[in-house]
């Protein structure tokens, strides 16, 4: 296990190096003088000079990269031009909001996706199976920002049951927090539920035709017990790791969901920064998201090894 962990950690280093290189290179795409683009409306030569010095734009590219990575490694992701605050502080403020949304989305999609997948597999080739498959195809094909707008219309404008936008933290007011986040979490988890359903269905179908399920049935066990205790337990192993991997994808989906529901999270931070030409924040958010995704990948791999006894040795 330790050897596996060591190997995986070593593999991470080149990936992290190239991630940093890609995100650093984004700055080179800015048309014209990067300092001028970064300054936005500001044309004061003193400010431009300060930007050039701060980002070492007057130095050769490899030197700029070394300074940038050095800063990143010591926790300095630069400073927001707009909010005049360190990028890391901004990210630390917004991250819990998006994390809450993503965790709720995963919970919703696990409940919907896994149960629909199991039912679909057990009722294979029946109208229920076809209906569940159609709903899954609908879930994968619906753009989540459109679903969000339609649900706002239904639940906030038409029925008036839930707020259309805004966010309240769970520590401030738990119930209000739930009311403000339930719709966005559902929207965010919608396509993931569909993906989970498809994976659960195929894993369950495989498990249901295996020898151990046939043995369990031959022993005279009730079908309910065979499905829930024997087939589902084994089928869900890959699904668990898929859940960890999808947290990274959900961070991506959160950009649109947060925009639709005006939730002040990670996604809204990157969009607001894009429109205010706050490039240090764009780079910082991309870097943190990519690193989170890589670490989740690692956790998923470890979880897979821990859950599956055959891989432990």
């Amino acid at each position, binding site marked *: 296990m330790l050897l596996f962990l060591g190997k995986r950690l070593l593999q991470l280093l*080149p*990936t*992290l*190096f*190239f*991630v940093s*290189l*890609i*995100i650093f290179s*984004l*700055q080179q*795409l*800015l*048309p014209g003088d990067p300092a001028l683009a970064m300054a936005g409306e500001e044309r004061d030569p003193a400010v431009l000079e300060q930007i050039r010095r701060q980002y070492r734009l007057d130095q050769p590219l490899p030197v700029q990269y070394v300074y940038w990575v050095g800063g990143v490694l010591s926790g300095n992701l630069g400073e927001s031009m707009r909010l005049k605050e360190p990028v890391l502080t901004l990210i630390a403020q917004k991250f819990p909001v998006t994390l809450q949304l993503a965790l709720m989305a995963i919970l919703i999609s696990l409940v919907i996706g896994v149960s629909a997948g199991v039912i679909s597999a057990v009722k294979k080739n029946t109208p229920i199976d076809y209906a569940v498959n159609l709903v899954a*195809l*609908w879930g*994968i*094909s*619906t*753009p989540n*920002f*459109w679903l969000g*707008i*339609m649900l*706002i*219309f239904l639940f906030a*404008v038409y029925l008036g049951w839930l707020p*259309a936008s805004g966010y309240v933290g769970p520590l401030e007011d738990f119930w209000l927090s739930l009311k403000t986040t339930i719709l966005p979490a559902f929207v965010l988890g919608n396509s993931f539920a569909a993906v989970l359903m498809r994976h659960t269905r195929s894993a369950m179908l495989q498990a249901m035709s295996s020898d151990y399920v046939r043995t369990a049935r031959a022993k005279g066990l009730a079908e309910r017990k065979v499905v829930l205790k024997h087939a589902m337990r084994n089928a869900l192993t890959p699904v668990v790791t898929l859940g960890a991997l999808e947290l*990274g*994808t959900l*961070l*991506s*989906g959160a*950009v*649109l969901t947060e*925009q*639709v529901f005006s939730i002040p999270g990670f996604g809204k931070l*990157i*969009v607001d920064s*894009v*429109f205010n030409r706050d*490039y240090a924040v*764009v*780079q910082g*958010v*991309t870097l943190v*998201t*990519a690193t989170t*995704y*890589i670490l989740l*990948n690692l956790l998923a791999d470890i979880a897979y090894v821990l859950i599956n006894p055959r891989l432990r040795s």
Partner: protein
Amino acid sequence: MAVSEALAHELAEESPGARAWRRLVKRKGAVVGLIIIAAFLAMAVLAPVLAPYDPIQQSWSTIRKPPSQLHWFGTDESGRDLLSRVIFGARASLLAGVVSISIALGLGVPVGLLAGYGGAWIDALISRITDAMLACPFLILAIALAAFLGPSLQNAMIAIGVTATPIFVRLTRGQVLAVKVEDYVEAARAVGNPPVRIALKHILPNILPALIVQATISVATAIIAEASLSFLGLGQQPPAPSWGSMLNTAQRFLTNAPWMAIWPGLAIFLIVLSFNMVGDGLRDALDPKER
């Protein structure tokens, strides 16, 4: 006996493309998807003929009118006909879907071939860069690229294309690794074919099915990505019609003019659903296990 022999002979004569097509059209979902895609394509090409009004012509006397006989889909906040804007919007979406995936294929396939066939350090280098790009969530990397390149449909297509490239690099590399140990590749090498010829003439045709399936599904992803970037203001710029930017405007008028949000969203949903259905059908039709 004679009948089965004739059938076997006929099947042996059938080209792989014709065989895949025959299997594809047997799948109802894929056929429905193909019909809807064809309808949207016709809509995009014939937009000037089909659209009842100029999609950017503003009219202060028809602001936010609900669907009627004059305006089947209603009008928007500037009095523009929504049906005409949805019809013209198909151009941006389909163009973005096809162009960005062509960019991804054009970059990803040669690099994947190089990684898979070249092996050694080239493979290691390309694989690490691919891993790094795949580690950046798709939309966030596309947003970051589009932000640095500047907001426009062209830049959105480049951003989506570049972001989708690693998927094709990884797929091509994996397929090449599986195919290059086959006997016919060994034989081609043994008779002295140069590596470029082996890669293009012997390996590429055999990995095409997997690439076609992935490209079809990726077009759906690219259309959603373009709509998402336009929704955020990073794609097609107003007043040119785009389904994503139409939804952005519609959200502001949800209380007074909910119809503004229905049609562009439905159009995105339908086209994406169709590409997904065709992709699923192609996967089954091209699967060697089905033969």
